[in-house]
């Protein structure tokens, strides 16, 4: 059934594209033709010690050509033939020793490059060569990257180096607040970020009230965050793409690393299956604090734990092919009294599986095929003398992706491909295990097919001018099985139509142009600009201050249209002191259409097949200025980031149909991050953050009904929470470091000066004087010290 729908939809999309594609390809191909005879050099860049592919390595052929390795470590260079001469190929990458190889410049050559670890001493101020700094020439704006080396230097929070926490210290990426796992990127909502872990989407990015990300940061090889100007191969969310690549596993030697913190323990094992050509990586984490809860009389019926597991294997099949199989499984559980038969339990988690195949046709043509499966679900179980029922919700995705990367000469790098995802959403059903008090209620399972076809070219138009242009066509099919409701202008159900399984209910076609330009002013500075349109077909409906597993994910349907955003971004980029300092100044303006919010008093709990009767739609706009100053080498490294921004919404039915501040509107956002190499054994780190409080709705008065004190509200989000700021400090003590093994102790204090940052402000009657009402501020985390022990063999 699935295959039939899939094939029909793709064929339909292809028939439309078929006419356009040859023309487009011809246009792109003509750019690659050139008169002089050329040879092509290509291959994979790897770390000699571990066999890990190197992303973003810079490869230069004398002064003739330069390129960077792609996300799978592949690179390609085209150089003119010079018979009888040799060409020097120089390769450099952060944290690795630069490498030069000479080759005969008369035929196509495949060279795989194995780079040794950097031999630079810690206290040397190494002049970071132009090549390994951020790229001034790349037309990509609005991007933040953290390399393996930079990841090692991020501040320690709760004894962990958490990738997602670290990117929230960069401009434009804001944490949703204490106790929350969400992120706001350039004024967008928490559901507008596409988090990809080895190409699989992650729906639930954090464990335990946002403290820990759902994957082990030790296993991360590279993270790139696009806040705007995404190239055409990315799509599906309005505000950002967080592309995270994990390590593949050391294919030279076995390695074990792990750590024990106050809350959780982690362990990673990696090694070769066949030395030099295949390897595996298994990495897991679990909290163990709950084991102590069991020993306490008072808390023994409470459950609080999470665990996650990443497993990967990869095989090199011959010279041209590589296969990767990876899986992720993570779960959180929170429970009170449930084991006793009287209480509740909440389970939620993600599972993903990916099969990928890299194929190198030749030195210029590279293909990546991926088959991805993802399952996100949550379950709330409640049991007591009268009730025993579960509320269950799930999103299952199956995706097929294919991308061809055609490194057509040195001036053109073309990516084209398609992505097709089948979503099956169970929006929330109630199962009663004891029919005498509660009956179950099942909702229609919702199916959809999310397809995209794209093409993108990064073109070096002139010596100083680079242009990336492309387009992404998306076609979203809402599929049947079930009743679909039509909503009248009064917001109520007018009628319902039944669709058979697999029938197309509605199709949304969107055309997302992407354009980015960079102009290099001189050796050390450039200006860039970009425009991107994005659409989003999965929407998170939430009405709580913290991200709860009860927040509903819904796909676009006959009533809910795809969200669309358009963003323009311009920036100025400057390197100082031999690329030791990087200054980035970027401004952006983003408009959002078809934004969704709940009506006042919307019935959000329980099972509701026509939740659209509770929804309102409108638009949003967001603009701002981001400044980032980074110091990249020396004993002291770190950065200072500042964002000035505004984000608003205008939704009919809210705030008298006028523009109002979105909850995530924060005028100022500052982060100061520092990492100091005190000695060979000690590293100190610290970060200070400050941001304007969220826009909130506070009462303008009060009254009484049924004896209950009620508050009277006028405007939406017209007030501000108090400003948030805190200082975290950390120190790492390298106990021992030899070639064979190393271990260290990491100390950290979260919120050193114990500022009681407001998590929420609520209102209540004074306990002693019933006529008096008071405002109460709740702060979650004050001063939290933490120790963790980490080792590595």
């Amino acid at each position, binding site marked *: 059934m699935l295959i039939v729908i899939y094939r029909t939809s793709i064929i339909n999309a292809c028939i439309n594209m078929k006419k356009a594609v040859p023309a487009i390809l011809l246009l792109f191909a003509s750019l690659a033709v050139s008169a002089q005879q050329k040879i092509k050099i290509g291959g994979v860049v790897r770390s000699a010690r571990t066999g890990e592919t190197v992303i973003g390595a810079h490869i230069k052929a004398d002064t003739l050509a330069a390129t960077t390795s792609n996300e799978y470590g592949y690179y390609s260079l085209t150089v003119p033939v010079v018979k009888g001469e040799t060409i020097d190929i120089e390769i450099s990458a952060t944290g690795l020793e630069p490498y030069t190889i000479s080759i005969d410049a008369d035929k196509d050559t495949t060279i795989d490059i194995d780079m040794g670890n950097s031999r630079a001493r810690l206290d040397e101020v190494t002049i970071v060569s132009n090549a390994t700094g951020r790229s001034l020439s790349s037309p990509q704006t609005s991007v933040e990257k953290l390399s393996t080396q930079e990841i090692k230097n991020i501040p320690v929070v709760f004894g962990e180096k958490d990738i997602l926490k670290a990117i929230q210290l960069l401009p434009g990426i804001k944490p949703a607040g204490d106790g929350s796992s969400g992120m706001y990127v350039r004024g967008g909502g928490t559901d507008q970020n596409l988090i990809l872990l080895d190409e699989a989407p992650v729906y639930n990015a954090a464990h335990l009230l946002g403290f820990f990300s759902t994957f082990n940061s030790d296993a991360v090889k590279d993270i790139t965050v696009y806040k705007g100007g995404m190239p055409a191969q990315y799509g599906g969310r309005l505000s950002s793409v967080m592309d995270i690549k994990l390590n593949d596993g050391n294919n030279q030697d076995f390695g074990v690393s792990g750590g024990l913190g106050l809350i959780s323990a982690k362990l990673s094992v990696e090694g070769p299956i066949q030395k030099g050509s295949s390897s595996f990586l298994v990495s897991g984490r679990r909290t163990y604090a709950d084991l102590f809860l069991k020993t306490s009389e008072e808390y023994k019926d409470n459950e609080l734990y999470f665990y996650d597991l990443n497993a990967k294997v990869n095989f090199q099949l011959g010279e041209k092919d590589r296969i990767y199989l990876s899986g992720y499984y993570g779960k959180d559980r929170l429970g009170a009294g449930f084991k006793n038969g009287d209480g509740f339990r909440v389970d939620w988690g993600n599972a993903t599986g990916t099969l990928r195949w890299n194929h190198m046709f030749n030195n210029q043509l590279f293909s990546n095929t991926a088959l991805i499966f993802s399952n996100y679900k949550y379950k709330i179980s409640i049991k007591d003398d009268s009730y025993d029922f579960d509320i269950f919700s799930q999103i299952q995705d199956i995706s097929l992706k294919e991308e061809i990367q055609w490194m057509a000469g040195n001036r053109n790098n073309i990516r084209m491909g398609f992505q097709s995802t089948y979503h099956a959403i169970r929006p929330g059903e109630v199962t009663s295990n004891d029919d005498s008090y509660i009956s179950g*209620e099942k909702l229609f399972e919702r199916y959809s097919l999310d397809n995209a076809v794209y093409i993108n070219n990064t073109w070096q138009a002139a010596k100083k001018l680079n242009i990336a242009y492309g387009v992404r066509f998306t076609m979203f099919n809402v599929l049947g099985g079930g009743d679909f409701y039509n909503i009248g202008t009064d917001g109520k159900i007018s009628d319902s139509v039944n669709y058979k399984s697999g029938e197309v209910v509605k199709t949304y076609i969107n055309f997302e142009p992407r354009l980015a330009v960079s102009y290099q002013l001189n050796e050390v500075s450039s200006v860039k600009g970009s425009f991107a349109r994005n659409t989003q077909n999965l929407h998170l409906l939430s009405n709580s201050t913290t991200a709860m597993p009860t927040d509903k994910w819904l796909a676009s349907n006959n009533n809910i249209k795809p969200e669309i955003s358009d963003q323009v971004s311009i920036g100025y980029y400057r390197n100082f002191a031999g690329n030791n300092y990087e200054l980035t100044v970027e401004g952006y303006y983003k408009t959002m259409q078809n934004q969704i919010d709940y009506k006042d008093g919307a019935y959000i709990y329980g099972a509701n097949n026509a939740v659209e009767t509770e929804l309102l739609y409108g638009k949003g706009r967001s603009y701002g200025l981001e400044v980032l100053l980074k110091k990249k080498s020396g004993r002291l490294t770190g950065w200072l980031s500042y964002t000035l921004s505004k984000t608003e919404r205008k939704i009919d039915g809210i705030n008298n149909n006028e523009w109002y501040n979105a909850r995530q509107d924060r005028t100022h956002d500052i982060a100061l991050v520092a990492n100091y190499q005190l000695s060979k054994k000690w590293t100190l780190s610290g970060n200070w953050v400050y941001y304007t409080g969220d826009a909130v709705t506070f009462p*303008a008065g009060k009254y009484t009904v*049924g004896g209950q004190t009620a508050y009277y509200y006028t405007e939406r989000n017209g007030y501000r929470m108090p400003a948030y700021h805190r200082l975290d400090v950390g120190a790492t003590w390298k106990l021992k470091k030899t070639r064979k093994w190393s271990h260290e102790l990491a100390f950290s204090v979260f919120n050193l000066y114990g500022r009681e940052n407001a998590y929420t402000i609520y209102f209540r009657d004074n306990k002693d004087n019933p006529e008096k009402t008071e405002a109460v501020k709740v*702060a979650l985390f004050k001063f939290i010290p933490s120790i963790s022990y980490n080792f590595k063999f």
Partner: protein
Amino acid sequence: MKTTRYSFKLIILLSALAIALSSCEKVIDLKLNPADSRYVVEGIVSDKMGGCYVSITRTKEFDSEAGYTPVSGATVTIADDYGHTISLAQGSDGLYRHPDFKGESGKTYHLKVLLEGKTYTASSVMPAVVPIDSVYITTEDFFDEKYLMVHATFKDPQGIDNYYSFDQYINGLKVKEVFFDNDELRDGKNYDFVIFNLSETDRFKLKPGDSVSIDMHSTDAAVYKYWYSLYQGATGTGGSASPANPVSNIQGGALGYFSAQTSEVRSLHVPL
């Protein structure tokens, strides 16, 4: 060896303590901009004699510590669909009443309030009565404290949408909360409704020796929606991301609600 085990234990203890002591609540001073005062109308039509009244008050500023004074000078009428209209007069307690009026299940009532040149209207249908089978008290554990809670058992009528609300009186004093539910997932089932009174104020907390009574009402959908939206977004609890005024069934711009509801009272004495 000994010192490492001891320090390990100490670290665990300290960290548990640190996290436990970490969250806190504090009363703060907030500068809130006052808005123009609005009228609040609470209209009840009960099927029990003496249970019908209309209360009219105003919104006050957040900082006000004065009580809610009833508003005088309103012309209040209640009509049914058969052309009967009654006028309510303000009594000494400030509430507008009629001496011998009571409502009937199945009928629709229309409220009209004329006040300072403005008219506020509302309609409500009185549902059939759902009788209480029994009431009893249990002790429940919440957040390490014990609470005495009253249960009301009844059978939900099958096939129709039912909406319920409960008032609780402890030693004659009304608890400042309205407890409510609908019969979603419970249509036709035996219902054990727990009055979740978690009040911290002494006189509203049920204790041994207290006399307690509960008043169970069957209400229409609009009244249920009023209580639902009130508790979801207007009681100041901070759980909702977007607090808002409740969805009222009163037209004309007044806050509040109008409910034609049945009434069933049961009383209990809490044993010492």
